[in-house]
């Protein structure tokens, strides 16, 4: 069933376009545009790496939050989980296999992303702890995205509704995370308050500091993860309640 789930994920062209193609294109394109007139090599590295680390957060949002949610909703709409259950395949087995498959897909996507970054971008090399923290943060963020995606699909149970909701969340996160042209510093205070609650903001705004091993106060970032996790928990609880 693991291979089946992996085929199920990779069979969705959406995750290739939005989960791999778009982050790669955006990272290279935005970075080149942003640094085109810079002369200070250190500044080029700083800006390139900040953009690269920030856009990396789009990969779990596109593949897990949107990709998985849409796939799950489509299957629920068609009654596929019920059909599989009648063949003796339990729901938790399906979910576990899907989570592992998403992990494999994410790992491959990030491997490609880092390979492209190393080959085509002028990136600052991380300190060991910075790299490990980036991996941990991406893993936590992906897990929360998985829970939110699962809950949205289980609540909406329809492909169209799920697609619409996750697309809105995706673009809202991109916008508030400072990836749509307006940086955190230039946002109105209301939007800044909202942006502070999103883990994606910290990937694009602050992660360069962690990446290079400089001193960083993690409290706001942890609060954002806790908030996002709490939202996921509430949505999951609502989804379980609705379906039992």
């Amino acid at each position, binding site marked *: 069933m693991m291979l089946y789930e992996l085929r199920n994920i990779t069979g969705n062209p959406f995750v290739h376009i939005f989960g791999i193609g778009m982050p790669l294109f955006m990272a290279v394109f935005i970075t080149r545009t942003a640094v085109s007139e810079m002369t200070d090599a250190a500044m080029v590295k700083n800006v390139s790496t900040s953009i690269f680390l920030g856009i990396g957060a789009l990969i779990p949002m596109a593949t897990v939050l949107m990709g998985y949610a849409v796939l799950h909703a489509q299957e629920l709409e068609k009654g596929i989980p019920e059909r599989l259950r*009648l063949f003796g395949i339990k729901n938790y087995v399906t979910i576990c296999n899907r989570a592992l498959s998403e992990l494999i897909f994410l790992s491959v996507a990030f491997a490609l992303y880092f390979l492209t970054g190393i080959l085509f971008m002028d990136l600052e090399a991380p300190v060991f702890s910075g790299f490990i923290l980036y991996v941990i943060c991406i893993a936590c963020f992906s897990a929360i995205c998985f829970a939110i995606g699962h809950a949205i699909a289980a609540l909406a149970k329809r492909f169209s509704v799920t697609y619409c909701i996750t697309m809105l969340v995706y673009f809202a996160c991109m916008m508030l995370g400072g990836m749509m042209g307006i940086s955190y510093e230039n946002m109105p205070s209301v939007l800044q308050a909202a942006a502070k609650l999103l883990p994606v903001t910290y990937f694009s705004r602050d992660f360069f500091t962690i990446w290079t091993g400089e001193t960083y106060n993690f409290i706001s970032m942890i609060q954002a993860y806790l908030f996002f996790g709490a939202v996921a928990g509430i949505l999951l609880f609502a989804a379980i309640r609705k379906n039992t």
Partner: protein
Amino acid sequence: MEQSALLSIENLTVRYGKDTALQIESPIIIEEGDRVGIIGSNGAGKSTLIKSILGLVHYEGSIHTRLQMEQIATHMQFNEYTDAMPTKHIMEAILQTKISRSQKLRDLIDYFEFGDCLRKKYSRLSGGQRQRFTIIMVMMQDAPLTFYDEVTSGLDFETRQKLVEKLASWYQDRDSSLCIVSHYYEELEQLADKLLILDKGHVIDYGQKEDLFRKYCGRAVIVLNNSTENEQLFWSYEKLASPAHLIALPCETEEKEKELTALLLAHNKNYTRSSTDIEMIYANAKKAFLERQGKECEL
């Protein structure tokens, strides 16, 4: 519950909102080796009964079985699968075996002539191919109890006949119990030994096909088209309930049957004779049921 009973249902009630979709009071027992045809018009509660047995809908009452859920195989009315991969991979994942490693699976694929469809995605399959795809996987489960819910719905006459012949032949020498929901009585003639007749969520009757025929239609029945000429020819004879386009004449004795057939031959009339006709069982069982309730029967 008796030793040979696979499943027993008693005092079962299923509600959809305020509507009662199914209400079974007297016990229904499905025994080992039973081939039960579940019949009734739309909204009779046939699929609801299967869904309640499988635990897919909430119900009140008791459904007892000594089988684990994994020992019950089901072909639902609507079966959907992912479109992200060819059917071969879906089949191998669900059955947890490689086609190349399972002789039994290869035999089933050959038996149902599905080999050419293995590389196709599910959405690319025709209606008949889709049904065969699920049937192969249901049969691979080799379950003691199997449900087929309208397995031939949406198929053309020829595909339907071919599929039912294959099903009948496959299960001929097997001990598995089957519950088959169908609107096509001729399919149940081949597949079912027992009938569970439902109407608007109530059980009209349950029993051996032959017993039910004797109970509601007598020894045998002669069926002919309902035309003015035929109506006039048999106006004085007792008739059984039947669909509007047919006339059904009961033959309680051999002499009565001889008399009727002689009359039919003398007037060169086409007719069929049966002692198991499910359509006649259904029509007359429903009539008796409605009469018991003080209602008129419209077939």
